[in-house]
């Protein structure tokens, strides 16, 4: 047998099947280690997939050997590969960097369960990224969500629990809305396979149920993707989850919802639904704009580093949706690139935040005063990642912002206004990040922790690796560009 052709299936199966073994372990370290290995291997797998996609174009895999639409198919194109890289990479990074922090957050005997849930979350997200079948997406969305709830609920603060309950409720509403939408589409087309849907939808252009279905699916996924104003679950979940979990989630969980959102709207609805593009734009862009501005504004007044970053995430999601809402090739490029680059930057920032919390014991800004002088290396990396988030040239963030602005400029007469909004929000980002950086370097350390020390060397190296990635992909963005181009082409297949 030739494993290479089974890559898509293995990508999901590997973490999924390791999980049950992990929960049987007794010791925390073993559990962590096996979870880390599994995550590492699935990262290797997604690298393999990426190479395969770049060389051979889109891969399709028929599970059980049943031809779609009768069986379930997996489809891997540039976009999926990009998301896969994010998921597995983020998980590996968070596991590798977060060992000590997690060991402190989760007591040794519950650890196996925790890491099992972690692997299942990875598998679920990967499953969504490779899915070619609408209902299958639902199933794996639920797998990943349930696992993520567990991860968040592991936070030490009791507020993690109330946060996770809210998260469960909203997440389930989102998933169920999505299910309703899929149901409507199935009712009108009799199929669940994305490609097949696109074909069969052409027969009944915008019958009522399809329009409603589009609405339900978009809103349901917007709930999952925390698109403003449906973001209420995100800040608390990010803030009170264990720090390493936040690194993982921030880098990929909402991205995956956005991924499937764009999949559906572009591959299935656009082109098959009269005026859907206009409707989509009209629906998404105002939300995205307000999201960008309001969330950045809120972030400027938060007293907690993780909250600041969480709100900034909402703003960044706004960027992605804005770009996606332009329904233009440049817009899609920008959206895909920004997914990748934002994940890099935010991952790095949360990783540093994790290091700070690990030493200072709290993510409250007041506790982090002067941390920059105690932990120069980590802080320097933080600054680099921050610049990438702001979009300073030479960093990854700049690339996507450039594409975004260009896309917006050539959109229509409103372009300049949008550019103004983007610029303003970037300046707000300067403010809320600069605020922390300034007080980290010049603030007076609080009484308790005057003698803080740097985190361990390996973690420092990891942090710096992330920071350097931010610069590297800013100077040599060929890889994400190639993937984004491929993904865009496929998405636009539905549009023209």
């Amino acid at each position, binding site marked *: 047998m030739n494993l290479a052709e089974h890559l898509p299936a293995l990508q999901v199966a590997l973490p999924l099947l390791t999980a049950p073994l992990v929960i049987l372990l007794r010791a925390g370290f073993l559990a962590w280690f096996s979870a880390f290995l599994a995550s590492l291997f699935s990262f290797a797998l997604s690298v393999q997939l990426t190479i395969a996609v770049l060389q051979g174009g889109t891969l399709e895999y028929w599970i059980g050997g049943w031809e779609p639409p009768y069986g379930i198919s997996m489809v891997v194109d540039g976009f999926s590969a990009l998301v896969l890289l994010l998921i597995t990479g983020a998980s590996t990074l968070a596991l590798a960097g977060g060992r000590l922090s997690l060991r402190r957050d989760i007591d040794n005997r519950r650890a196996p369960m925790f890491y099992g849930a972690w692997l299942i979350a990875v598998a679920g997200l990967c499953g969504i990224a490779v899915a070619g079948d609408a*209902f299958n997406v*639902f*199933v794996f969305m*639920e797998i990943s969500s*349930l696992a993520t*709830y*567990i991860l968040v*609920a592991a936070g030490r603060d*009791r*507020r993690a*629990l*109330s946060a*996770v*309950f809210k998260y*469960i*409720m909203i997440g*389930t*509403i989102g998933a*169920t809305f999505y*299910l*309703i939408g899929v*149901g409507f589409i*199935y*009712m009108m087309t009799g199929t*669940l396979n994305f490609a097949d849907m696109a074909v069969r939808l052409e027969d009944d252009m915008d019958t009522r149920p399809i329009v409603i279905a589009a609405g339900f699916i978009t809103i349901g996924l917007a709930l999952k993707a925390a698109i403003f104003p449906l973001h209420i679950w995100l800040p608390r979940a990010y803030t009170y989850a264990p720090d390493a979990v936040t690194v993982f989630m921030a880098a990929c969980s909402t991205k995956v919802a956005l991924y499937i959102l764009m999949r559906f709207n572009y591959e299935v609805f656009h082109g098959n639904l009269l005026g859907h593009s206009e409707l989509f734009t009209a629906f998404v862009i105002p939300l995205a704009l307000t999201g960008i501005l309001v969330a950045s504004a809120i972030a400027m007044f938060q007293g907690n580093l993780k909250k600041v970053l969480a709100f900034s995430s909402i703003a960044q999601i706004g960027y992605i949706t804005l770009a996606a809402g332009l329904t233009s090739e440049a817009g899609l490029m920008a959206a895909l690139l920004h997914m990748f680059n934002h994940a890099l930057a935010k991952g790095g920032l949360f990783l540093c935040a994790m290091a700070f919390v690990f030493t200072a014991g709290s993510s409250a800004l007041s506790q982090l005063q002067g941390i920059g002088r105690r932990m120069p290396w980590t802080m320097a990396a933080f600054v680099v990642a921050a610049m990438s988030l702001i979009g300073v040239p030479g960093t990854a963030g700049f690339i996507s912002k450039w594409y975004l602005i260009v896309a917006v400029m050539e959109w229509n007469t409103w372009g300049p206004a949008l550019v103004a909004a983007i610029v303003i929000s970037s300046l707000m980002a300067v403010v809320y990040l600069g605020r922390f950086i300034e007080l980290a370097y010049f603030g007076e350390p609080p009484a308790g922790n005057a003698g803080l020390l740097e985190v361990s060397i390996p973690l420092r190296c990891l942090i710096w690796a992330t920071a350097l990635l931010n610069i590297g992909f800013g100077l040599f963005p060929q890889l994400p560009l190639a993937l984004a181009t491929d993904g865009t082409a496929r998405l636009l297949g539905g549009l023209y």
Partner: protein
Amino acid sequence: MEILGLFNYWAFAVLLMVGLYALISKQNLVKKIMGLTIFQSAVFLFFITTSKLEGGTAPILQAGKDWTIFSNPLPQVLILTAIVVGISVTALALAVVVRINEEYGTIEDDEILAKDREA
């Protein structure tokens, strides 16, 4: 008759409404979960409705039985899965509620919020 054929959809709509309402506006967490269950069952009902075929029977092709029309098996399969997902979510949510009750001493949403604020 034609209109009555849509009754299932309306029932589905109303159930969805009731569930969603309980989910959003009830303060008691267990009540929220019950609302969630209703909400989801409504969707199940909807799917199964799409599977029904006039004069059909359950899609079990027994030899000797001379049924020719069978209802649509696919939505049934989907809902089997969905039901299981639903119960899993319920179980997890209940566990969280229990923990919340231990930590906060209440399962009323507004009181929990108040306690978070003062913390």
